[in-house]
C-alpha cells in the first residue's frame, strides 16, 4: 500500500489489516505514556484546503503518538489564497521534507491527482476530497462497528470483518464523502448497507450501488438494523431546494426521540448510533439520541486516532 486514496479500491485483506493494526494502536492510547517510537525522524505534512479542525488534529495526534514530526499547512491565509497551485504547494511541502502528505481538499479527486501525477513522490493520505471519499473516516467507523459486532458476538475482533451486520446510513448521501467511503468499505467487510435519504439527496446512478435504498427511515429502522449512521446536513443544502424546510427534513429523516423510543420498544438493545460529527443537534439527530447510551460518537473520535496511526504506520514504515 503506497497511498490511501479511497475505500473503493481497498481489498478486504488490507482493510482487515489496517483495523487489526489499529487495535494495537488503540492500546497505546490507554497507556500512561501514549507514544511509540515507530516513526521517529519521519515527517508527516497535513495539507488542509478546507477547514476541518477535527480531522486535522486527529491526524496530528496520530502522527505524534508515532513520534513523527508534523508540519501543518492550512490553505487559508497562505499562498494558496494568492493563487498557488496544488502542484506547487505539494512540491513545496515535499521540499521541506514531508514523506507523507495528508490532504483535505474541496475538489473530488485532489488526493488522486497528487498520488497519480509525478508532482511528488510522498505517500498520500486522502483526508476527504470533495464529495468523493473520506477513507479514514470509513475505517474508523468500521473499527467502531467491528468492536461492537465482536462484543455482541462474544468474539475477538482481530482478523474479523463485519459479516452479517446491517448498517443504515441516513441523510445527504449525494454530497457525502463519508457515505461513499462507508458503502465500499462496509460492503467489502461483509456488512449489508441501506441508504435512507430524500430522493433529492441521492445521486443519479446510486441504483447501481451494492446497497438497498429506502426513502423511509421508519421502515428502515423497523427492519432492526445493528447500527444507524446519521450524516450531517450542511447548511447550504437548505437553500438549494433539496428539501422544503429543516423542520420537514427533521420529521422525515432526523433521528428524533420518537425513533429512539421505537428502538427501545422493539427491544433492539444492541443497535448503536454513529455520527461523523460535527452534529446538528435538533436537525439530523435529537439531543436525546445523541446523548443516549446507543450513541458511540466519542468512541468514533477516539478510534479515529488509532485508525490514523495504523494508516500512517503502514504507509511509512514500509512494513507491507
Amino acid at each position, binding site marked *: 500500500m503506497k497511498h490511501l486514496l479511497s475505500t*473503493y479500491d481497498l481489498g478486504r485483506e488490507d482493510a482487515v489489516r489496517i483495523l487489526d493494526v489499529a487495535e494495537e494502536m488503540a492500546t497505546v492510547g490507554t497507556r500512561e505514556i501514549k507514544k511509540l517510537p515507530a516513526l521517529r525522524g519521519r515527517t508527516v505534512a497535513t495539507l488542509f484546503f478546507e477547514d476541518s479542525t477535527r480531522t486535522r488534529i486527529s491526524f496530528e495526534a496520530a502522527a505524534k503518538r508515532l513520534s513523527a514530526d508534523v508540519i501543518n499547512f492550512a490553505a487559508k491565509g497562505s499562498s494558496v489564497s494568492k493563487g498557488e*497551485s*496544488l*502542484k506547487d504547494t505539494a512540491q513545496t511541502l515535499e521540499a521541506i521534507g514531508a514523506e507523507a502528505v495528508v490532504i483535505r*481538499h*474541496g*475538489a*473530488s*479527486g*485532489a488526493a*488522486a*491527482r497528487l498520488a*497519480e*501525477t509525478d508532482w511528488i513522490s510522498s505517500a498520500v493520505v486522502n483526508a476527504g*476530497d*470533495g*464529495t*468523493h*471519499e473520506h477513507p479514514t473516516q470509513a475505517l474508523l467507523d468500521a473499527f467502531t462497528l467491528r468492536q461492537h459486532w465482536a462484543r455482541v458476538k462474544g468474539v475477538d475482533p482481530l482478523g474479523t470483518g463485519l459479516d452479517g451486520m446491517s448498517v443504515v446510513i441516513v441523510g445527504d448521501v449525494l454530497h457525502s*464523502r463519508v457515505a*461513499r467511503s462507508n458503502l465500499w468499505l462496509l460492503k467489502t467487510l461483509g456488512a449489508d448497507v441501506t441508504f435512507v435519504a430524500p430522493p433529492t439527496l441521492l*445521486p*443519479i*446512478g*446510486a441504483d*447501481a*450501488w451494492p446497497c438497498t435504498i429506502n426513502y423511509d427511515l421508519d421502515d428502515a429502522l423497523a427492519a432492526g438494523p445493528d447500527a444507524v449512521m446519521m450524516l450531517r446536513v450542511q447548511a447550504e443544502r437548505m437553500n438549494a431546494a433539496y428539501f422544503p424546510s429543516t423542520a420537514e427534513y427533521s420529521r422525515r429523516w432526523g433521528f428524533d426521540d420518537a425513533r429512539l423510543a421505537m428502538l427501545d420498544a422493539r427491544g433492539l438493545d444492541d443497535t448503536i448510533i454513529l455520527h461523523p460529527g460535527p452534529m446538528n443537534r435538533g436537525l439530523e439527530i435529537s439531543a436525546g439520541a445523541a446523548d443516549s447510551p446507543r450513541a458511540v460518537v466519542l468512541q468514533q473520535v477516539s478510534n479515529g486516532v488509532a485508525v490514523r496511526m495504523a494508516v500512517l504506520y503502514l504507509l511509512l514504515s514500509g512494513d507491507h
Partner: protein
Amino acid sequence: MTSTAATETHLIRGASLLGGEPTDLLLADGRIAAVGDAAAADERAQQATVVDADGLIALPGMVDLHTHLREPGREDAETVETGTRAAALGGFTAVHAMANSNPVADTAGVVEQVWSLGRRSGWVDVRPVGAVTVGLAGERLSELGAMAESRAAVRVFSDDGICVHDPVLMRRALEYVKSFDGVVAQHAQEPRLTEGAQMNEGTVSAVLGLPGWPAVAEESIIARDVLLAEHVDSRLHVCHVSTAGSVDIIRWAKSRGINVTAEVTPHHLLLTDEKARTYNPVYKVNPPLRREKDVMALREALADGTIDIIGTDHAPHPTEAKECEWAQAAMGMTGLETALSVVQHTMIETGMMTWADFARVTSTTPAEIGLVADQGRPLAVGEPANITLVDADARWTVDPEAMATMGRNSPFSGLELPGRVRATFFHGTATVLDGELNTPRTAGEWA
C-alpha cells in the same frame, strides 16, 4: 504577381479516389486540371512535381465547422498560425474559428481580423464564426448582418461554449440570419441544470462525487430549438451532439422535415465517462464524455445520416489549465491532428462507413452547412484542388508533444490509431508533403 507566387503543378500518381481504383490527378493553377490517363498525358505534367500516391487514398480536403484557434486574446493557448498548421497536418483545408476569443468575435472588425490572420498564415481557409450575442452574454444580438457582409462573409453564428438559452433570443437569431442564409450553431446546454457540472451524470459521477451534467440538459435545448427552427422556418445546426437521446430528437426532427444539421466530435465517438475515474482533467470536456450506449448511438447516427458531420471542437489549453484538480481544470481537448485517425478507427474499421462516407461527413456536408463555396467539392476536373492524401494502412501512437498545435491536451495520448495524412493540397499548394508541413499558400495566390 511574380512567378514564385504561382501555385506549383503537381502530378499525383496512383491515388485511390475515395478508396476506389488508383488514378492520377494533375493539379495546376489551384485546380484539378486532369484526372486519369489524361493527367500524365497533359503537357503541364512535364513540369509537374510528381507525388507518388501508391497505396494512398485521395479525399476532398477536410472542413472543420468547429475549431477554437484562441486568437485574439489567448495566444498562450493557440494562434491562428499554430492552429492552422495543426489543421493542415490533420488533413484540413478549411476551419471555422469559434467566436469565444478575447475580444469576442461579435463585430465585423474582429471577424475580419481573424479572417486576415488566416489569409496571412495560408495553411487553410479560416472561416470566422460570429457570436450570436454581444460578448456571448446571451442578452442582445450581435451585429450579425455586419459580420455577414464583412470581408469574412460570416455565415455560421454561435455562442459556442455557452448556450443561447433565452428562447426569445434564440428565436430572433434563427429568424434574423435567414436574411443572409446564415445558420445558428447551438451549444445545447441548459444552464440551470448544469451549474457546476463536471462530468456526465450517471453511475460514474455517483462514485466519483463529481457534480453531474445530465443528458436532459442537452436534449431539452435541442428539442426546444428544433421546434423553434420549424416554427420560424430557419436553419439550425447542433454542435457536438453527445447523447443517445439527442440523436432520437434530431432523427424525429429530420423526419418532420425540420432544417436541422448536427455534428459529433471524434472524442465522443470513442471515449466514455469511464475515463474520468483517473481524475485526469485531460478527459474533461464540454459536453462531457458520455456512456458506452451514447457512443454507440452516435456512431449509428453518423452512419445513417442523422448526424451530418464531424466537428473537432479542437480546444487547446496551456499546460497549467489541465495540471490541477479536475474541478479547477479547463474544459476541452485538442482534435485537429487526430480527427481523421479517430474517425477511421471508430467508423471505417468497424465497417460502419466507407471513405466516400468519410468525405461526406468531413468535407462535403460541413462545407455546405458553412456555405464555403470552394471547399467540399468533388475530386473532378475543374474543381478547386483541395485534396488530402491518406495512408490508411499506417498505424501510429499519439504523442501530444509532437503535435503542431500548442495544446498538449490530447485525450488520445499513447493510443495507437490507424491512418496518417501524407499530403494536403490547399488550392493546389502542397501545405503538407510526406507527412510534414511543406509550404503555406502565399499572399499572391489568394488573388
